[in-house]
């Protein structure tokens, strides 16, 4: 293998390229990205970048510095042509089509992530919606909101109480902006952490002055009646919330449109085998990779920071190691910081999992919860309990019994 192309100067793409070099690959590596920015870290976009603690120069990916690759930034991947491989699998590779040229490769890492979903009936200015409706996914999105905050933004409606929505709400409150948080489900993060924990987190936001509206969806967003500045957000229950800006955080869609017709299997992401192999010479990593997890007995697609690092490295190794590469089946881990509340989950929880509070109580600002299914430990949540999460991580990997996990966690 002489030439590897990485699509996405993302966390997953950068860590894939770094792992290729670390593992001794001496051929050419070209990293392509539609965005012109140098590789940057996303978690600060909804936090430190909005609160003003960091500027755009503070969030560069350290792992991209001094990386021996050719950067091709500002070039969008628009198509993929794979060589037809013989029975011996020798003819790996193909051509990546860009909006300003093309690149031949022997190996391809697809790590171009996902895009924020928009409100079907509201959209942003591009979709015919009013000014002031936006998402928060890219550095440009974050800088636009930051600029509005610096200019004295006084009110915002956040649609969707997922991680991005909750973090944006917290960052805006920290800048004294009036925040209304609208979530159609009964609790924030209910599907991920269960309604009890979700409501506890809603309480954190209410204590910080957020107007949290649960169980109510958005019908449409219009330009504000009256003087015409800002937006009216029309809710399912007939009420209307007026704000200068609307930030929509209702999940993401994998960036796979450009792969239609390539021969890859596209189904809620790039479908891979258990080693992240998508086709001969093609691997996927990060938010758009979907692969079968033996540990969890299902196809997974994971959007966490830690997964981007881990899957990028694993995908790179798969390219170099061939079919002997081990299955990629780690225990997921994520964190989210809101105000001075640090939420961390190792493993999986879920709305219908067994759950036991093992430290503190849901009314406290510090607690830990152990989750299980069929008598086995599946995940551990810490709210301002990083030590519990770190120390229980190995036990989640081992899949010890739920009862033993509860006992062990209580003893920490």
């Amino acid at each position, binding site marked *: 293998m002489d030439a590897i192309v990485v699509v996405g100067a993302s966390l997953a793409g950068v*860590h894939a390229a*770094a792992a290729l070099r670390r593992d001794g690959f001496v051929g050419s590596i070209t990293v392509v990205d539609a965005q012109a920015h140098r590789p940057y*870290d996303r*978690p600060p976009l909804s936090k430190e970048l909005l609160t003003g603690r960091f500027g755009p120069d503070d969030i560069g*990916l*350290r*792992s991209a510095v001094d990386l021996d690759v050719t950067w091709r930034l500002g070039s969008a991947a628009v198509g993929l042509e794979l060589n037809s491989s013989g029975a011996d699998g020798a003819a790996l590779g193909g051509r990546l089509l860009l909006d300003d040229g093309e690149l031949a490769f022997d190996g391809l890492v697809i790590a171009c992530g996902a895009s924020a979903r928009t409100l079907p009936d509201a959209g942003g200015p591009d979709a015919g919606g009013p000014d002031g409706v936006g998402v928060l996914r890219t550095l440009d999105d974050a800088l636009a909101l930051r600029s509005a905050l610096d200019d004295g933004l006084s009110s915002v409606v956040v649609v969707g109480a997922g991680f991005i929505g909750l973090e944006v709400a917290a960052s805006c409150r920290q800048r004294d902006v009036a925040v209304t948080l609208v979530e159609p489900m009964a609790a924030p993060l209910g599907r991920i952490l269960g309604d009890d924990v979700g409501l506890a987190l809603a309480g954190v936001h209410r204590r910080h002055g957020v107007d949290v509206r649960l169980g109510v969806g958005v019908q449409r967003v219009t330009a504000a009646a009256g003087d015409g500045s800002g937006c009216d957000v029309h809710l399912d229950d007939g009420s209307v919330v007026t704000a200068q800006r609307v930030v929509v955080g209702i999940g993401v869609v994998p960036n796979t449109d450009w792969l239609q017709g390539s021969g890859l299997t596209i189904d809620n992401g790039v479908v891979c085998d258990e080693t992240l192999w998508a086709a001969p010479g093609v691997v996927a990593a990060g938010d758009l990779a979907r692969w079968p997890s033996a540990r969890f007995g299902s196809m997974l697609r994971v959007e966490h*920071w*830690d997964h981007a*690092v*881990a899957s990028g*490295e694993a995908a790179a190794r798969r390219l170099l190691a061939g079919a002997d590469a081990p299955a990629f089946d780690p225990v997921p*881990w994520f*964190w989210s*910081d809101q105000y001075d509340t*640090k939420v*961390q989950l*190792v493993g999986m929880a879920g709305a219908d999992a067994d759950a036991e509070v093992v430290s503190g109580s849901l009314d406290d600002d510090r607690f830990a919860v152990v989750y299980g299914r069929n008598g086995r430990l599946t995940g551990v949540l810490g709210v*301002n309990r*990083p*030590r519990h*999460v*770190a*120390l229980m*991580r*190995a036990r989640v990997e081992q899949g010890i019994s739920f009862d033993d996990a509860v006992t062990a966690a209580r003893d920490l």
Partner: protein
Amino acid sequence: MQVIVDFDVCESNAVCMAIAPEVFEVRDDDFLYVLVENPSEDLRDKVEEAVRRCPKQAIRLEG
């Protein structure tokens, strides 16, 4: 090999502790303590992984 943590950046996510508990410990006060500032070479792979997996990019290695 010397472990250097930028404590202004560290937010005690404790990922390093899960990967290399011989070197890193987040205690009940939620602060990170570096147990061994100059770990032995047999810990290099673990410590390097902790560097890569730190979500705040707060750890670096010298030597």
